[in-house]
């Protein structure tokens, strides 16, 4: 009950910020339509809808990190959290309250991207449903990252680190916008150690119906999600104690 009331508030705060809607939904859709138009003129295998859409649905999640981190950082600044700490809300209420409302937003963003992609010519198959389902563990990683950043950074720092740095990392090291095999070397190896590339390849494999390829990419995503969630909880509890 307490957690739900808090989660509802967090969902409203995110949805009512027009910038969130513009970046969370508008920006991935603009990229999808733009890259599809380029693909129509100059065909590039990387930008075929079946490879582009899974990448964009993952890339779009980096904005969810920004939203959750901003919300937490602003709450810390405004002393709203301080007020709520003096109520009977438990640490679990806070962590779930910040995490759960963002999950349906991630799924909605994914569904809308696929709906637009279908309108642009993507084949409608049951694999799209699986891709939407498997966006959930990927979303948990991105949300945990937001919880972590929001717990340690100020609201101004969140804009720079989550808004610029993270979205760039998520773009460069995920293989959405260029083929990492062409870059090769250290860059390719680094990408394989991080979760961004695995998240994109996971979604691509699901959409292609290449189910054997799912687990090798799902495991690192789940691993990173678990580690970042634990880190996020520890750091959130630490700031809760310090405040």
């Amino acid at each position, binding site marked *: 009950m307490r957690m739900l009331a808090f989660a509802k*508030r967090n969902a*409203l*705060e995110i949805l009512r910020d027009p910038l969130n809607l513009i970046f969370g939904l508008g920006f991935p859709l603009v990229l999808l339509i733009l890259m599809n138009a380029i693909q129509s003129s100059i065909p590039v295998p990387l930008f075929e809808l079946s490879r582009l859409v899974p990448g964009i649905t993952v890339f779009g999640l980096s904005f969810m990190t920004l939203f959750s981190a901003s919300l937490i950082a602003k709450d810390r600044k405004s*002393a*709203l959290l301080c007020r709520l700490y003096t109520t009977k809300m438990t640490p679990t209420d806070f962590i779930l309250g910040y995490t759960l409302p963002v999950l349906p937003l991630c799924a909605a963003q994914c569904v809308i991207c696929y709906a637009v992609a279908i309108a642009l010519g993507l084949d409608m198959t049951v694999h799209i449903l699986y891709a939407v389902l498997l966006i959930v563990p990927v979303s948990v990683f991105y949300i945990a990252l937001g919880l972590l950043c929001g717990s340690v950074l100020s609201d101004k720092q969140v804009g720079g680190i989550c808004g610029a740095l993270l979205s760039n990392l998520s773009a460069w090291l995920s293989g959405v916008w260029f083929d990492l095999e062409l870059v090769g070397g250290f860059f390719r190896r680094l990408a394989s150690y991080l979760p961004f590339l695995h998240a994109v390849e996971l979604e691509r494999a699901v959409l292609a119906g290449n189910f054997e390829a799912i687990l090798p990419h799902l495991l690192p995503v789940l691993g990173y999600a678990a580690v970042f969630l634990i880190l996020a909880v520890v750091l959130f509890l630490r700031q809760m104690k310090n405040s």
Partner: protein
Amino acid sequence: MEAIRLEALSKKYKDTVAVDSLSLTIRKGELFSLLGVNGAGKSTTIKMLSCLTKPTSGNAFLGGKSICREPADVKAQIAVSPQETAVAPGLSVRENLALMCGVQGFSRDRKRTKIAEISHQLGLDSVMEKRAETLSGGWKRRLSIAMALISEPQILFLDEPTLGLDVLARSELWDLIRSLKGKVTVILTTHYMEEAEALSDRIGIMRDGRLLICDTAEAIKRTAGTDSFEEAFIRIVKEVEK
């Protein structure tokens, strides 16, 4: 009947003593003000009493419950209106109040009744559907206090409730705080001498974490040998320096 009892309550941060062996009793329904210059230990005292931080030593009992051993029971009977305006900016006034009802675990019916009651009591009816971020400073403070009161606390902590408000908004908030006297035990921290004098049943003056004096405004003025409360405050605080 006592609402709050502090027993040698202390808080140290590394080498700094923020609160030094504070002992004090506050009666039920009393409006008690804590005064002091910056760094006197007022906010740390409030943080300890509201279970936001643990004391290094000593204890305090709110409604007979220990802040060290029974923080959940203490939290059930208190509410805090922090120094900063702690409201959810993107939510309407009604939604902010509903959030606090939800956090308190109120049923749907009780939530509806409490929101109607508190909005009427605090004169918020005309702004119920406005988003908190669009409200003026005075209205935000009013909402902040309403969010604290909606849980029907027995003890209310008001940390600098009128800071930065204009004269009219401050006067309105004073009326509101006065109306709570006798019903709720209010602990007020403020930098405004006239505020403490006008509102408080008793006043405690702190410096360097210690309680220098605790009495009515009149008695404090008599002790300091002056008719002005501000002058009395200055004399008492400076006396310690000597």
